[in-house]
């Protein structure tokens, strides 16, 4: 049994009357890959933001290698140390990269902040090499790069600080199929080489099948089902998981029947969370 790198217990966050994250608990094994699937408003992104530290939880704990991340970090050194534990890669690298900063400068900035004493030039070459970018990309501004290349830069920047966990929030959703496949393969290689744990947030069940070991399914802020990915996708237990699976278009697909199933499910849940217990 591998060690646990990330342990989340009883996470809760409310916005007004909405329980965005409601009693969410899970663990991520060292070097493991855990998928979080759900639709908009299911609480998957709020959960990720709390884990990374962009949002504060009302209750619950986030333990990384056994130490709590939810308490406020005091002092620069402590904040930096915490930032090194978990790194986040967003969906849209257009918005997460500074348009006026070259790729090389962006990586150097991260390295200078976290590792002031190492040879930055060598490490930058190493990082670019690791994500499959050439030296020509190093001197480019983000707008000169394609979507796939930009996402490689975002991954390189996350890798620069040598995190224990990477949170990938719809990180391949905006990419074309052929480019998405390249980036998914890259992520699989990086995990095999570095042992970094992945928290893979996505709405695409095909992607979940491809890159995760375990999966949790979220709806209305709660976890409705969890387990090994292959098992959950092959024999879903919760009606919502079944609906999600049936909603994936395929030949012989009947959207009308799905629309009816969706309405039926939202009726039963609104009547008192009977299916969520």
């Amino acid at each position: 049994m591998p060690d646990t790198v990330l342990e989340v217990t009883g996470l809760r966050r409310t916005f007004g009357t909405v329980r965005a994250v409601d009693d969410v608990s899970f663990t991520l094994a060292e070097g493991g890959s855990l998928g979080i699937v759900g639709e908009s408003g299911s609480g998957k992104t709020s959960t990720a933001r709390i884990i990374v530290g962009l949002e504060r939880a009302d209750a619950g704990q986030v333990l990384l290698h056994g130490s709590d991340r939810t308490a406020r970090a005091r002092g620069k050194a402590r904040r930096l140390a915490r930032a090194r534990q978990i790194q986040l890669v967003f969906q849209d690298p257009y918005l997460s990269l500074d348009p006026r900063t070259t790729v090389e400068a962006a990586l150097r900035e991260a390295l200078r902040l976290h590792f002031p004493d190492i040879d930055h030039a060598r490490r930058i070459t190493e990082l670019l090499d690791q994500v499959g970018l050439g030296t020509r990309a190093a001197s480019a501004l983000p707008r000169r790069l394609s979507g796939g290349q930009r996402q490689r830069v975002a991954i390189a920047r996350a890798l620069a600080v040598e995190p224990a966990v990477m949170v990938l929030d719809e990180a391949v959703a905006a990419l074309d199929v052929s480019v998405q496949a390249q980036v998914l393969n890259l992520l699989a290689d990086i995990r095999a080489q570095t042992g970094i744990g992945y928290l893979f947030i996505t709405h695409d069940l095909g992607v979940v099948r491809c890159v995760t070991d375990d999966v949790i399914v979220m709806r209305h802020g709660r976890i409705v089902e969890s387990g090994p990915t292959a098992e959950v996708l092959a024999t879903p237990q919760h009606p919502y998981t079944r609906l999600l699976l049936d909603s994936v278009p395929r030949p012989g697909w009947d959207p009308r029947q799905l629309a009816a199933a969706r309405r039926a499910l939202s009726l039963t849940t609104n009547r008192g969370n009977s299916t969520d217990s």
Partner: protein
Amino acid sequence: MTRTLDIRNLCLRLPDTARPVLDGVDLHIAAGETVALVGESGSGKSLTARTVLRLLPKGAETEGAVEVAGENVLALDPQQLRALRTGRVAMIFQDPRAAINPLRRVGDFLTESVRLTGAMSEPDATRRAAELLTAVGLDASVLRRHPGQLSGGMLQRVMIAAALMGDPVLLLADEPTTALDVTSQAEVVALIGELKERFDTGLLFVTHDLGLAAAISDRVYVMYAGRIVETGPAATLFTDPRHPYTLALLAATPRLAAPGGRLAAIDGQPPDLRHELTGCSFAPRCRFATQLCTTQAPEPHSAPGAPGHLAACHHSDRLEESAADA
């Protein structure tokens, strides 16, 4: 019988580019038919759809013909063009929030086009709008709401209702479900299907999602670098692809049924517009490519015994053998 949409040898050039953005596109839709146009970003699929409404980028030069119910769109005068856009052809865009004025009520938005062209009186337009809102699963109270008060799925239904206001013969849907959740996607697709049947509208469904294209359409066109590389019935195109690009796209798609692990990624990138293309546009990324492919652009030819299934590839027959090996 006149086709609802008939695009013949459409070429579109933009200033400061070395090759045409659309290069000899042939595409047709019969009355009541659903046709999917699939491809990746930059392949020209959205541009093809927009050309049907003559929504062209600045400085664009076109050649060829785009006929809607026998009328050449590229040759219409401004008044005829306006009638086309408000009546016979309607478009649904990917992001409903970008296509609606947030300050105006939904009712104003729905009735605007028919009121402006004088096609309907205001009470008639409002009655029709209320009817269509019911048809898309909303109710007439939505007429008084502002876009900000509706969810993405509801707003996309409003867009569908708006598209049907002028009784179009052709509906252009440009990634209409890409911004929606999978379960809302199913609802919106079901809805478009029902309405299309009821009003016998032809549908051009532009998408990058091969699974969705296979699930909903009668026929499919696959586009790469401004050219149609393969077309055929949805039922056989994805099971027996005859163009290496279609085959590669299918292999690169993460699937529920497939085991986890590495995907068959397509190496390289699509050609950019700064370089002229000689030969087949996919040749540099194609594992079947030979000398011939780099010098001579392949003409579309049909599969044996299937005249409606065309692929522009010199090696379609080798493809079949390799699929049998795999």
